[in-house]
């Protein structure tokens, strides 16, 4: 049976989007994710599509329950992001948004490693334009670094796939052993995309440099594709628990002192990814459900937060905490949506984060990882602190910066409103989301214990913030760069590479002089006949040209008749 891959609708449909104009174009690009979603929805469970290339049979479409959840949320995200980007005249950005979303969907629907690799790479390639489109020197350089890191991840994945295929004889994308050389490389490749500690810098470096809409778009896909890939290939790998814990814990310290509010959000993104990675590491049905559900909710509230910050950046041209404040007066709706996003990421009861994160926490507790659970609890308090309070507080409240601007454009407000509604809907009616999850479990988030303890945690965190601010102990927002792991490649690494290259270039020049001298003496001899003054390259009298061709033809004919 022929089943059209929904990803192709978005990818191929994106190309005409570059040509259309005006309202027709807006309708068209909004319709694409809807069409694609309908195609996904009508695909029967277990649909497959195959394609043979280079002697390998690719499974370009393989629909299972886990891929279905991710495909659904990617579609919702694509629609919201397109809606959010309608204000911009930059058609390139909208086109790559569609292609990027299509690649993300293609990746989670991929049944084999090679298809996955192709979609991963295509996603990297399309997404980088969202960074470059900001057209500043900083974003240009950051985009380049981003692409290089993605290509490195791609090369690791490629090598891993080849090794894995050699040892296992299959390219099917399924559970793998990270202990084999192939498995280890694939694990590392996913790790880069998922922003494992020390491999995370591309994220923090590049995302805040993207355009207003670009950062929102970027936040939705790449890392969640990686979470999906980890959940498919490495569920239950214990080391992921410890990696995930580090991811939840270290970024919150940076988030506290970071000034660029979109960068604060990227640090908090790593923290949230950490929860998902821990869930994959635990690997029980509850944990994997938790991971999928948390990814689902996370995409929505993270997009909502990035959208509100994008609106601020669009209207004020600033994004540093030190420059902002008091914006609730000018942008009340945006402020309201931002607070909803903040409440969701902080996992307040009745908001989406509450019903998803708790599954992961519960799974960790059930497996008896006491330390891990405590770290996650600390991280939960921390995330409320910087995403839940710091972001809305420094942008919209704090001291009045005196900036008065317009409220965000209508299309942006619509997108934010929709995202906000979804955040609350999931929080209030969690069973709708649970029904989509890969495993059947009877999980109930709203228990007295759970609600009370969560409220205690959150309100006493808020109390701590209030107390610190009123005591003047809270670190002020400062214009600065905070060193992170990227220092290693941006300072000493760069110095090393530059020096190595310089010496190679000088060496080559020296060799060139020597070779040239050698070839010149040979060339000069030949030159007498062939040079511009020679027989072969004068501004020829045409007669001699005729002679030459006649000669060649003659030679040819002699050959021919002799034979």
């Amino acid at each position: 049976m022929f089943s059209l891959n929904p990803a192709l609708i978005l990818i191929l449909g994106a190309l005409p989007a570059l040509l259309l104009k005006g309202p027709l174009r807006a309708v068209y690009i909004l319709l694409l994710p809807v069409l694609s979603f309908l195609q996904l929805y009508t695909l029967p469970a277990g649909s497959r599509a195959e394609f043979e290339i280079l002697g390998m049979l690719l499974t370009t479409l393989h629909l299972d329950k886990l891929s279905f959840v991710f495909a659904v949320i990617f579609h919702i995200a694509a629609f919201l992001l397109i809606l959010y980007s309608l204000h911009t005249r930059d058609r390139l950005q909208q086109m790559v948004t569609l292609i990027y979303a299509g690649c993300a969907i293609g990746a989670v629907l991929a049944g084999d490693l090679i298809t996955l690799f192709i979609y991963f790479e295509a996603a990297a390639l399309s997404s980088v334009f969202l960074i470059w489109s900001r057209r500043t020197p900083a974003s240009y350089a950051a985009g380049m670094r981003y692409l290089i890191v993605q290509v490195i991840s791609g090369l690791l994945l490629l090598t891993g796939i080849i090794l894995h295929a050699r040892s296992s004889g299959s390219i099917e994308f399924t559970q793998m052993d990270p202990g084999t050389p192939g498995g280890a490389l694939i694990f590392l490749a996913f790790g880069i995309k998922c922003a494992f500690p020390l491999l995370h810098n591309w994220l923090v470096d590049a995302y805040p440099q993207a355009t207003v809409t670009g950062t929102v778009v970027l936040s939705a896909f790449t890392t969640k594709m990686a979470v999906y890939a980890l959940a498919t290939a490495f569920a239950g790998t214990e080391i992921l628990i410890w990696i995930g814990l580090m991811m939840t814990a270290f970024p919150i310290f940076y988030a506290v002192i970071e000034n660029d509010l979109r960068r604060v959000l990227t640090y908090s993104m790593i923290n949230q990814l950490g929860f998902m990675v821990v869930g994959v590491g635990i690997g029980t049905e509850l944990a994997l459900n938790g991971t999928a559900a948390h990814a689902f909710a996370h995409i929505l509230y993270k997009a909502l937060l990035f959208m509100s910050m994008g609106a601020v950046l669009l209207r004020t041209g600033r994004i540093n905490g030190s420059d902002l404040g008091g914006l609730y007066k000018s942008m009340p709706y945006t402020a309201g949506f931002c607070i909803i996003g903040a409440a969701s990421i902080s996992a307040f009861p009745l908001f989406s984060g509450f019903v998803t994160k708790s599954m992961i926490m519960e799974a960790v507790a059930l497996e008896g990882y006491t330390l891990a659970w405590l770290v996650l609890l600390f991280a939960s308090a921390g995330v409320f602190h910087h995403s839940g309070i710091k972001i809305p507080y420094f942008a919209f409240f704090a001291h009045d910066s005196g900036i008065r601007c317009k409220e965000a454009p209508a299309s942006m407000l619509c997108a934010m409103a929709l995202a906000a509604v979804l955040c609350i809907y999931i929080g209030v009616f969690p069973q709708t989301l649970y029904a989509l999850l890969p495993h059947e479990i009877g999980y109930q988030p709203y228990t007295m214990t759970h609600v009370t303890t969560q409220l205690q945690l959150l309100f006493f965190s808020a109390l701590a913030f209030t107390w610190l601010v009123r005591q003047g102990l809270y670190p002020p927002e400062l214009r600065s760069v905070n060193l992170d792991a990227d220092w290693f490649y941006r300072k000493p690494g760069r110095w090393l590479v530059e020096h190595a290259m310089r010496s190679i270039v000088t060496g080559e020049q020296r060799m060139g002089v020597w070779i040239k001298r050698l070839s010149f003496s040979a060339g000069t001899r030949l030159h007498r006949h062939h040079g511009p003054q020679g027989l072969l390259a004068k501004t020829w009298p045409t007669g001699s040209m005729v002679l030459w061709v006649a000669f060649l033809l003659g030679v040819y004919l002699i050959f021919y008749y002799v034979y």
Partner: protein
Amino acid sequence: MNLLLQHLELALLIPLLGGALVLLFRNRPRLREASSLFAGILLFLYVTQLLGLYHEPSPVHTLLNISASLSIAFHLEPLGLVFALLASGLWVFTTMYSIGYMSGNSEKNLTRFYLFFSVSIAATMGIAFAANLFTLFIFYEALTLSTYPLVTHKQTSEARSGGRVYLGLLLGTSIMFFLTALVITWIRAGTLDFMPEGVLEGNTQGLAAVLLFTLFMLGIGKAALLPFYRWLPAAMIAPTPVSALLHAVAVVKAGVFSVLKISVYTFGIDYLATQEASGWILWLAVATMVVASIIALSKDNLKARLAYSTISQLSYIVIGAALAWPAAALGGALHIVTHAFGKITLFFCAGAIYTVTKYTRVSQLNGLGHKMPFTFAAFLLAAFSVIGLPPFIGSWSKWLLIEGSVDTQHYVVLFAFALSTLLNCAYLLPIGLRAFFKPPDPAQAVTSPGIQEAPLACLIPLCATAAATLLLFFYIQPLYDFLYPVFNS
């Protein structure tokens, strides 16, 4: 139809005929250019016919017997057919393009230009269909000589000096090393014919095999290995269509085609592997690949940067042969095709930029993308392909090459491929990106109304080849199937 198969010399005759027509119509530019285009299309059709008729390697078709074991002879086999198809197909595009380019830059001596272009293609066809080493050698030299007037086309002192390096290195290496290797092979094997399993099995062992292979590879200067690659940047003095077809496709690919042909049909992949005959050359090619990429990064002149990029990419193919492993060699053969599409597009774009703006340096391109969106978009697509990113055609050949290096456990080679990929990104992408994403330099006249998209005759070929880099990604399978038997007998 069998007539076509029996008269392979038609492949030489058609371009020569085109050359004759060019001469005939030397005073009527329209007809002169039309006849060049006509010959291109005719040749392409002829080669596609051959492809359609091809079933198995044809019997050798001798033109001239010099002695019992020395002859000028042609035969049909997949590798040569693919190369001929590639060169003839891209010739059509290049002819269209050069019509736009040469008139746009008001170049002179066009009759000479088109004539030698045709002769070069004839020589390339001779290489593609050569049935033995001697024939290959003869046409290899003929190609060098017939491209020389194209390199020195501008007749400036700079062009002359470039031409001297070009001729000196190519002829010098071929006579010193290639010819020597050829004679040794003749003495050892008693034949120069290309055979499916090679001809050296049982008569050349150990160090002798290593030396012989090394001599061959150094002798094929057109494959641009360290240290004999300087001719390629020197040849960049030529008009851009020449650089595009000859120095991105025909001449350089004739070099690596010879490398593959000799590896497969004179040595045999299995023999190469058992004798470890390609060990030295493997490391030389790896070094060339990395060094040339680094040099490319340091070049601000656009065509020079592309030339060094070509040198680096040619080494991919030599590595493919030198790994002595079917998947790798097949990857090398595919790389001839995949790289050709990417690189010819890059040169077309460089030429289009030059035609419109007269800019030759990368640093001058800031902000030009808004004036020439198609040219720079095509440039970016082709750059992605050359880097080897999916979904572009260049990724398949790179895939097979990497697979080969993993299979043979040459992890250093694997690492070098990875390093080269990153360097490719670093030197190719900024060219297209700065045009779109960096603001124009106020000191330059980028914003002047005179600067607009390139003429259609330039634009159509470059868009077509750029689109091919993307579309052929999905249609690589027939090519793969066609070449597969060559390396997996």
